[in-house]
């Protein structure tokens, strides 16, 4: 059967964000894939080098609307490392609290989307119903449902009044845990869901290591890495993290990792509230730091890393941002090959791709057989350069 190229994207009803996948199919089976990213490239690194280091946290916050705490926290940590700034205990705990609430809402959002992708919209609505109170909590604590603007270099910008909001937070968490357990059960025990998720999108441990994947994608493939555990930042050394690893390497394993993480995050929020010390929320800053620093944060999708080089002026000389999806999406080709086209949305979804962060994708590469479909840009380019004429 001849190979057919099936273009998905960059703008497509099935995709929530712009990305371009060229999927090479033989009948129903995917034989290869090519990813093209960049449709969301906004030049954040370029912009960051033209803003002061106190403005950059708000800029990098806008990289992504879902993990909008991870990036500024990561940037602040890298500057704090370069300048040897010690963050006060209370600020570290507040950062942890926000980061974990963010992880809960991000994982619930993902679970909803994954349910939707397999056509189980009831589950999608249930997951999102339980996500809503978390967003409201974040609104209550920080003033915003997303883009919390809580991090600044040396600490956090707002204090949390636990006496006033503590009971409300605990109330939401109290109803969240049984709900997640129940919905998790609905995923694990449903035969249809199992049929769609088990043994699908296998990413072997070897491949996971080769592609350097991070976060839930790695933990679903038997690689137990978690920055919170391996390199405890913020208050994770004090409150502890239980990292769950699954070795099945399929979409189900990645789902279970996220379900367990949601429950664990709720526990971490409780422990953080218990351990919340009193004191200042921001360190005194003295001028602009010099030198270089690496900041690492476990965003909901995996390890986020920022490398900053400072020269003593108010602007960073270089800021390199690497979001987790960037590494995870690179591993999509081995995951897709051998499965049917109907599995593709779920496999892509199981990476929890965040194009805002990654800002670039398209997959499939055909080793044999000619290309049957060209995107408009490719067509234009070929025509203009008059080489590799279209046959």
């Amino acid at each position, binding site marked *: 059967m001849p190979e057919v190229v099936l273009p998905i994207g960059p703008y497509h009803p099935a995709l929530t964000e712009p990305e371009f996948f060229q999927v090479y199919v033989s009948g129903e089976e995917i034989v290869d894939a090519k990813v093209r990213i960049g449709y969301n490239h906004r030049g954040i690194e370029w912009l960051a080098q033209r803003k002061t280091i106190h403005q950059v946290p708000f800029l990098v916050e806008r990289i992504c609307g879902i993990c909008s705490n991870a990036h500024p926290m990561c940037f602040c940590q890298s500057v704090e490392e370069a300048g040897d700034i010690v963050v006060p205990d209370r600020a570290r705990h507040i950062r942890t609290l926000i980061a974990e609430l963010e992880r809960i809402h991000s994982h619930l959002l993902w679970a909803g989307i994954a349910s939707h992708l397999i056509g189980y919209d009831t589950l999608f609505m249930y997951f999102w119903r339980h996500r809503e109170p978390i967003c409201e909590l974040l609104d209550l604590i920080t003033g915003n449902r997303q883009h919390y603007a809580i991090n600044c270099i040396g600490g956090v910008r707002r204090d949390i009044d636990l006496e006033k909001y503590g009971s409300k937070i605990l109330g939401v968490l109290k109803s969240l845990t049984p709900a997640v357990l129940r919905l998790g059960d609905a995923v694990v025990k449903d035969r249809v869901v199992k049929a769609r998720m088990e043994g699908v999108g296998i990413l072997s441990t070897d491949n996971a290591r080769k592609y350097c994947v991070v976060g839930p994608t790695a933990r679903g493939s038997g690689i137990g890495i978690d920055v919170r555990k391996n390199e405890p930042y913020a208050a994770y050394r004090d409150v502890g993290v239980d990292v769950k690893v699954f070795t099945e390497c399929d979409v189900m394993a990645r789902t279970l990792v996220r379900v367990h993480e949601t429950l664990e995050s709720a526990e971490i929020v409780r422990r953080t509230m218990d351990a919340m010390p009193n004191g200042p929320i921001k360190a005194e800053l003295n001028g602009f730091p010099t030198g270089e620093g690496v900041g690492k944060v476990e965003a909901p999708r995996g390890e986020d890393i920022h490398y900053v080089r400072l020269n003593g002026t108010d602007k960073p000389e270089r800021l390199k941002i690497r979001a987790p999806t*960037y590494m995870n999406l690179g591993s999509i080709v081995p995951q897709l090959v051998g499965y049917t086209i109907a599995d593709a949305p779920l496999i892509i979804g199981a990476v929890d791709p965040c194009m805002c962060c990654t800002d670039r994708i398209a997959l499939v590469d055909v080793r044999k057989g000619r290309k049957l479909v060209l995107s408009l840009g490719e067509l234009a380019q070929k025509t203009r350069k008059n080489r590799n004429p279209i046959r």
Partner: protein
Amino acid sequence: MELGKKEDVLAKVKDELKDKFEGHYAKGDHRLYLNVKKEAIRNCIRLLFESMKARLSTISAVDLGDRFEVVYHLTFDEFNLVVNVKCSTPKIEAKIDSVTGIVEGASWIEREIKDLFGIEFVGHPNPERLILPDEWPGDWTGGEYPLRKRR
């Protein structure tokens, strides 16, 4: 962190690279910065990634005026250490050996750096444009690279 792991990594890299090793400094217990000659970068990454089981976190390029510095960030998750391997290449002939053959995950990172800085990664299996639009001015040589500093 286990005592001596940082020193262990340093000694092994020094031993492997010999005169290609140019210097190092450590910042705290968890960050190690190494300077190596660019000819030795493949050896260095092979040693760290294959023999010592580090994970490539990312690669950063920095424009230093007349030359580029390329920094490879490798993470040792088990003992909480980030090794930053730096090498530099002159701007006139910005070329460096690709490590994609060793670490599959470096492919996109190298393509991105090629897009944004115009550094050529010699031996990259698929050096196509990744994040800039196809219509962006210039081909791979002599084009316009957004993150290069303007003179």
